[in-house]
């Protein structure tokens, strides 16, 4: 399974490297959202400082939607789905590979946005360990749930509008957990953030297992 996951992740990342959609479109979009929030909430006032964790994760989720939609679209290309069904690839490996590729793109975006909130919002990353753990768990949760739902809507004519409609409510616990954990790490009590980090990890495990089990059926059905 891991051999297949590596193969698929390598392919998806190579496509992204060649097409440069993440670099040229998704990353500027994410930064733009961050800047617009700063304009809307007054960068000198206390509201922006208090809202920084939430704004950061809302921006990550919006950007993740673009990355997930891109990832799902790759396998909808001309005849690719049939070729995948005929291949010797383990569906769980395909799922893991696609989730890994999305996660890699999200990590890059999170680093960029992290730099953005430090520069634009004046955030002070105090609890670095909690921040890193939260990012890792939330990234895994968003990537696995996103890949699963991306496959679920694949092949539907309304997939582009349906994906955010289905996925955003599902990711609400991730948004809440990651925001609370970041809140604790950016000026609160870091110890208060770890239970939220645990919730994110549990969410990631749940969707990893569900995705690995369901992806083959979704591949056949779409």
């Amino acid at each position, binding site marked *: 399974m891991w051999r297949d996951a590596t193969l698929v992740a390598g392919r998806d990342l*190579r496509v992204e490297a060649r*097409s440069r959609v993440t670099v040229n479109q998704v990353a500027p979009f994410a930064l733009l959202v961050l800047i617009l929030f700063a304009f809307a909430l007054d960068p000198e006032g206390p509201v922006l400082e208090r809202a920084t964790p939430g704004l950061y994760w809302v921006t990550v989720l919006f950007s993740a939607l673009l990355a997930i939609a891109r990832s799902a679209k790759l396998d909808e*290309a*001309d*005849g*690719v789905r049939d070729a995948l069904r*005929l*291949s*010797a690839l383990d569906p769980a490996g395909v799922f893991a590979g696609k989730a890994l590729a999305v996660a890699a793109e999200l990590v890059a975006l999170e680093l960029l946005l992290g730099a953005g909130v430090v520069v634009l919002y004046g955030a002070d990353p105090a609890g670095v360990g909690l921040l890193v753990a939260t990012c890792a768990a939330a990234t895994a949760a968003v990537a696995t749930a996103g890949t699963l739902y991306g496959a679920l809507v694949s092949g539907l004519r309304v997939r582009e509008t349906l994906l955010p409609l289905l996925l955003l409510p599902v990711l609400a616990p991730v948004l809440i957990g990651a925001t609370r954990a970041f809140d604790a790490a950016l000026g609160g009590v870091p110890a208060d953030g770890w239970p939220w980090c645990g919730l994110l990890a549990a969410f990631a495990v749940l969707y990893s297992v569900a995705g690995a089990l369901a992806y083959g059926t979704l591949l056949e059905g779409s």
Partner: protein
Amino acid sequence: MEPVVHLRDAVALLGRFPALAGVDLDVERGEIVLLRGPNGAGKTTVLRACAGLVPVVRGEARVLGHDLRRDNRPVRRRVGLLGHATGLFEDLTVADNVTFWGRAYRAGRDDVDAALAVTGLSTRLRDVPVARLSAGQRRRTSLACLLARRPELWLLDEPHGGLDHDARELVDRLVRQAVAAGATVVMSSHDLDRAEALADRVVELAAGTTVAGRRAEPVERDERAAAAVTPEQGAAPTAVTHVA
């Protein structure tokens, strides 16, 4: 010996529409069978059913010794389907695509290189993104992906479509080489003169049923064997000679 393909009164649905309404087809190992018929006759559906991509809901359907109605997974990995769709990633190069699909089918690096060489894609076009290729070049790339996986049963849907004269000759040569190496071929084509010359047998389909299956002029096995060892474009076709 059991036929490679055995369909008896096979019925397949596309949604609620009966795309196959009782097809009979037997294909022996090493045969080249041409499916002929008007648009909508069921040629593509027969090929996709043989690949295990369209479920047969009634009748008998055995391919490569496996009952498709029970479990189509063992069959899928042993067939190669060249359909209307290319199965290629536009942003990746020709070499990237053939390498990815080759590895997805557990082919080795040598098989991938040989497939690129034998289809004439190993030099100028190797590192060109698929998005910049013509329709014929894309078709050749799909053919290279199929060659790399060394299928036992080739299912070719309009293999000559969109190709120039040289590429059509290449397809014919590769089919003969594959058969000489032990593969079996079922194909559909609207280029009937060329396809009938290539085929051992023509099966006529209409409205999802078998109308007739007549014997074509048999192709001498010696001629095939000679064609299989003919060097072309300076490349040794090792991927083809490995076909089980």
